[in-house]
């Protein structure tokens, strides 16, 4: 039995623009409108407009909202100031990653947790299960928001045409309520592309009007609609992990090289949080005897590594696995993120190949990210 895919408030807009649609985590989402390479380049050099309404919003409110989130998540959420946002994770008691999240503190006692579409129910269930004993309420707001993102160097200029909000005062990883093109929005300076940009959480009923206003405001700056395909190559170049690829329940934040998101020093709940003991052990293991490390690989040839392809030495010994791979429009070469044995993880290590359907193609081991914007 399969359920029909869900459609965002912008579905008709995407179809009118001729988007190629794809099923993504149960949603019918735009994969690309024209060429994914052109969309990628537009975000790097001008601006792109994304519909991200499939992301899962969960609101947590109440006197102990901060304490609940400090207990349920690995980050120090109580320490996030109102108007700011934090990248964090929710882990199993055994340390495995259930999802990576962005948490916005909207008010003293109000947070919005944004989960990946594929994990929104998992996160909602885990938060609910972990809420016992806390004076806090968890609200499923997945249907309450549409999410549009404007990403790219021209995005501040484009947004300024349609809002009086103080964008210059809005720092990276901050969010404030405001009005954009006459529509009430939570304006956040966040994104998943490696560029400056904004994410706009609005009522679904306002999504089309906002999309059209942004399209018009961005016309002179070269704003184009962008799909999930270029979003993936943009985040890959920026070295940002993707749940289901770099991050899974079989991986702890320390194994993914993201141990910094785990805050053992938090003081709420007497320092206790779900996964604490297992994560402390994982931190020690990763420090003393790392099994595999997450690295970047840059192809010398033109064949593209894919998730799941083995990383091998020239004689075929398996030393790792590709988690994400794609041709990088910015580098002009295929790139990959891969877990490789620690002995091969140093940038510049020679003799590392990817087994591309039986052929051992040479790769250069490099640090992540592949691309960092000039500020």
């Amino acid at each position, binding site marked *: 039995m399969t359920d029909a895919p869900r459609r965002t408030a912008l579905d008709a807009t995407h179809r009118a623009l001729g988007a190629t649609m794809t099923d993504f985590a149960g949603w019918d989402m735009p994969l690309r409108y024209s060429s994914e390479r052109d969309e990628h380049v537009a975000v790097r050099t001008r601006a792109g407009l994304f519909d991200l309404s499939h992301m899962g919003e969960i609101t947590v409110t109440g006197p102990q909202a901060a304490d609940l989130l400090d207990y349920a998540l690995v980050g120090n959420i109580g320490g996030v100031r109102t108007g700011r946002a934090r990248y964090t994770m929710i882990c199993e008691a055994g340390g495995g990653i259930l999802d990576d999240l962005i948490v916005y503190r909207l008010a003293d006692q109000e947070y919005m947790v944004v989960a990946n579409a594929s994990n929104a129910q998992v996160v909602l269930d885990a938060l609910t299960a972990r809420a016992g004993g806390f004076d806090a309420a968890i609200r499923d707001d997945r249907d309450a928001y549409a999410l549009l993102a404007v990403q790219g160097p021209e995005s501040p200029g484009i947004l300024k045409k349609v809002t009086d909000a103080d964008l210059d005062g809005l720092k990276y990883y901050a969010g404030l309520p405001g009005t954009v093109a006459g529509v009430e929005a939570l304006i956040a300076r966040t994104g998943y592309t490696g560029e400056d940009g904004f994410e706009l959480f609005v009522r679904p009923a306002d999504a089309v009007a906002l999309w059209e206003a942004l399209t018009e405001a961005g016309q002179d700056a070269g704003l184009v609609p962008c799909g999930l395909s270029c979003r993936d190559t943009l985040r890959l170049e920026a070295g940002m992990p993707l749940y289901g690829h770099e991050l899974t329940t079989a991986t702890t934040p320390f194994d993914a090289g993201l141990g910094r998101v785990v805050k053992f020093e938090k003081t709420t709940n007497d320092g206790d949080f779900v996964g604490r003991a297992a994560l402390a052990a994982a931190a020690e293991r990763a420090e003393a005897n790392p099994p595999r490390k997450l690295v970047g690989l840059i192809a010398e040839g033109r*064949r593209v590594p894919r998730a799941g392809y083995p990383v091998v030495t020239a004689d075929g010994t398996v030393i790792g696995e590709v988690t994400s791979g794609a041709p990088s429009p910015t580098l002009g070469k295929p790139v990959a993120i891969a877990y490789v044995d620690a002995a091969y993880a140093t940038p510049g290590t020679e003799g590392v190949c990817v087994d591309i359907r039986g052929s051992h193609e040479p790769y250069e081991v490099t640090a992540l990210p592949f691309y960092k914007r000039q500020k």
Partner: protein
Amino acid sequence: MSNPQQLRYSKEHEWLSGAEDGVSTVGITEHAANALGDVVYVQLPEVGATVAAGETCGELESTKSVSDLYSPVDGEITEVNEDVVNDPSLVNSAPFEGGWLFKVKISGEPGELLSADEYAAFITG
């Protein structure tokens, strides 16, 4: 999207030109190129290789996926398009022209090939 009337088409989305001196040109259709997305790597058979209808003879790699390339007919490869190896985006920009893939000297009767109209009906399903 229009499929040239003078070509014949396979259900694997290759097109085959009429034979000149027994040699036909093969490419993939605009429909297939659009479905693949931006093609970034093309592996073609060697000149002189024998190919068989419906069997893999190369691969087409796009941003998101890799697809096998099939030959629509039995025959021997007489020429491959080096331009498309050097610039795989030709498959997207000119699938029926500069993005052709290989030429094949047909050694037997082609199998089940479709006319332009039949192919158009096939892809709209």
